[in-house]
């Protein structure tokens, strides 16, 4: 039996670490009855394509991240709301791996699209790389900030005081180089592999967001598995919760070291609580406008998650 697992990143990136470890564990626990084939980014099309492939049952597992997943399961966009997650990563790990709001509530929204939400994990803090030092919203004035074309992200960065700009992914590096844009945001391991630090001067940790990704499975496939296989997958999930948490921290820390080594003059800024509070306050209305835009049970989901993360307003 062959299971196909497609993810959205390059070999060696966080999602690939997860998929490879998933492969190893599943093959080990089934004594090789199941082999897992991992497809990396671009092999089967775009992020949207691999989610569609999963709903169609062509692949059994795939990564789907809020950025584009919002077009399939709109409620998932709550993870784009700034300062929803805790500043304490132990809390984040706990909630993302076992939250009832996610695995019972949100999970239903996935099922209605033919997807089984298998797991959710953070890939690291979303870090700003900028050409200008920014420690408070007013310093974002006139900064052309590249974001993905998602209304919630656009509104968020507008509320922070920046000028959000849409630019295709492939043009971000040269865009920064030539100042078509002044800033972009991504997890640090990604910034390192895409070499964005080469063309910016500041790495700013503002604590506004973790890059959270989900692993989804085809719902019918998952339901059709034997109880034994389902138990095996649950076991694999809980082992991977610990594995990926450490793996992503290690990957991001190592990436930051490599960046500092490659470009010693880069300035790494971690905003203090007071500075973060200013950005949090500026973006306080984003949750409400998302609720208004998406509707459904977004309001309850957002409220419940804030409670679980301990980030109520």
């Amino acid at each position, binding site marked *: 039996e062959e299971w196909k697992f497609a993810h959205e990143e390059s070999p060696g990136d966080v999602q690939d670490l997860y998929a490879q470890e998933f492969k190893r564990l599943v093959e080990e626990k089934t004594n090789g009855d199941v082999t897992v084939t991992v497809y990396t980014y671009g092999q089967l099309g775009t992020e949207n394509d691999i989610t569609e*492939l999963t709903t169609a049952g062509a692949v059994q597992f795939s990564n789907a991240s809020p950025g584009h997943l919002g077009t399939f399961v709109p409620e998932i966009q709550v993870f784009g709301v700034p300062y929803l997650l805790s500043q304490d990563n132990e809390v984040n790990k706990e909630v993302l791996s076992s939250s009832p709001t996610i695995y019972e509530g949100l999970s239903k929204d996935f099922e209605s699209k033919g997807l089984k939400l298998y797991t959710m994990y953070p890939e690291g803090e979303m870090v700003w790389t900028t050409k200008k030092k920014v420690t408070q919203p007013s310093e974002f004035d006139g900064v052309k900030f590249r974001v993905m074309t998602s209304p919630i992200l656009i509104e968020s960065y507008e509320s922070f005081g920046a000028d959000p700009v849409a630019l295709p992914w492939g043009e971000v590096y040269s865009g920064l180089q*030539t100042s*078509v844009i002044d800033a972009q945001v991504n997890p640090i391991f990604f910034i390192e592999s895409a070499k964005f630090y080469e063309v910016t001067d500041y790495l700013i940790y503002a604590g506004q967001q973790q890059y959270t990704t989900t692993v989804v499975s085809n719902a019918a496939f998952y339901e059709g598995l034997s109880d034994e296989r389902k138990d095996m997958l649950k076991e694999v999930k809980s082992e991977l919760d610990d594995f990926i948490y450490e793996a992503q921290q290690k990957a991001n820390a190592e990436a930051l070291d490599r960046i500092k080594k490659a470009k010693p003059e880069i300035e790494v800024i971690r905003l203090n609580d007071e500075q973060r509070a200013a950005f949090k306050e500026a973006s306080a209305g984003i949750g409400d406008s998302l609720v208004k835009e998406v509707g459904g049970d977004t309001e309850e989901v957002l409220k419940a998650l804030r409670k679980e993360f301990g980030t109520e307003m």
Partner: protein
Amino acid sequence: MDLGTTILIVMLVLLVLGFPMMVPLTMASVVAFTFYMPIDPKILIQQMVTGISPVALIAVPMFIFAADIVTKGHTANRLIDLAMTFVGHVRGGLAVTTALGCTMFGAVSGSTQATVVAMGGPLRPKMLKAGYKDSFAMALIINASDIAFLIPPSIGMIVFGVVGKVSIGELFLAGIGPGILILLMFSAYCVFYAKRNNIPTIPRMSWAERGKAIVNAGPAIMFPVLIVGGIYLGWVSPTEVAAVSVVYAIILEVMIFKSVKWSELLEIARSTGLITAVVFILVGAGTTFSFVISFAQIPQHVIGALGLEGANSYLILAAICIAFFIGCMFVDPIVVILVLTPIFMPLVRDAGLDPVLVGTLVTLQVAIGSATPPFGCDIFTAIAIFRRPYYEVIRGTPPFIFMLLLAAVILVFVPQIALFLPTMAFR
């Protein structure tokens, strides 16, 4: 029979039988979906739509539109006059003018065929009158037009950049060095040919005439400045520069040269739309095909079977050049890039090769392949506009193909020729 062999046979048979090129590609995918892969065939359509959706591909119709406008207008003739006043008097001057004109027009156009049409039309009669053999003239025009693929903008580089996730801005700059190298090689050959065949020269032009030619062609020479400068200065992304060049083409031909009327623009846009569809349906079909071979993990098998995993980087570059060259001998260059790039990119990354260098080499191979028998879109274009039989059109090509392959070898061993400019600008 295994999937790989089956779809290869289906593709080749339908191709040789003369089916429209979208048919062999999609038929191979249909066969794969029906008999080998238990997947809903709607995925086939999804991949087709995905293939034409990347935002950067918008540059292709925009550059075609700009090229269509200037092809209809006076740009080509003014560039030819300019080249003529400077190099016309040397031995083989008209032939060198042709090579130089094709290179300059290549900086306006992203397609080699547009260059064959725009430059070949006016230049071939002039060369015949000056005493050049027709086979030499046609071979020169076809092959010098290849330089258009290397000099930015380049449709091939856009597609490679999109599929291979490589910066299009860097690829554009990397094409300039090799483009000039080939221009120099061709020019040297033109001089040699003219000497051996005793082609008479024309008198040297005065500086006054040269000045006048510069003034006349001035706005047209601004094209490459606009394209390279706009990207380099950060005003526009490589995708946007294509649309900006449409505006520039309109300013040039409609407002300055007054050679195209406002009312003609919509008709030109219609023809651009038609050509775009003909190309993009192949992009869509090629993407579907490339999905099939990725899904079935054929690249891994092929690379394993060839023993390329972890191979020496020169060996990998050689394999890439040969694969693209052979592919382009038979199939449309855009399709070859779409299908072969995903196969080789993982190898390129593992070997630590510079993807920009690989992209330049691929573009060069694709350009060579477009002019190489048996099948080549430049050859077909030449047959169509010159109305000469196939054999005569290709008879003079061997020396040029030899020089182009030599340029590829030089590029492998002296990559700085390509990487010098992007390194200076972007790294």
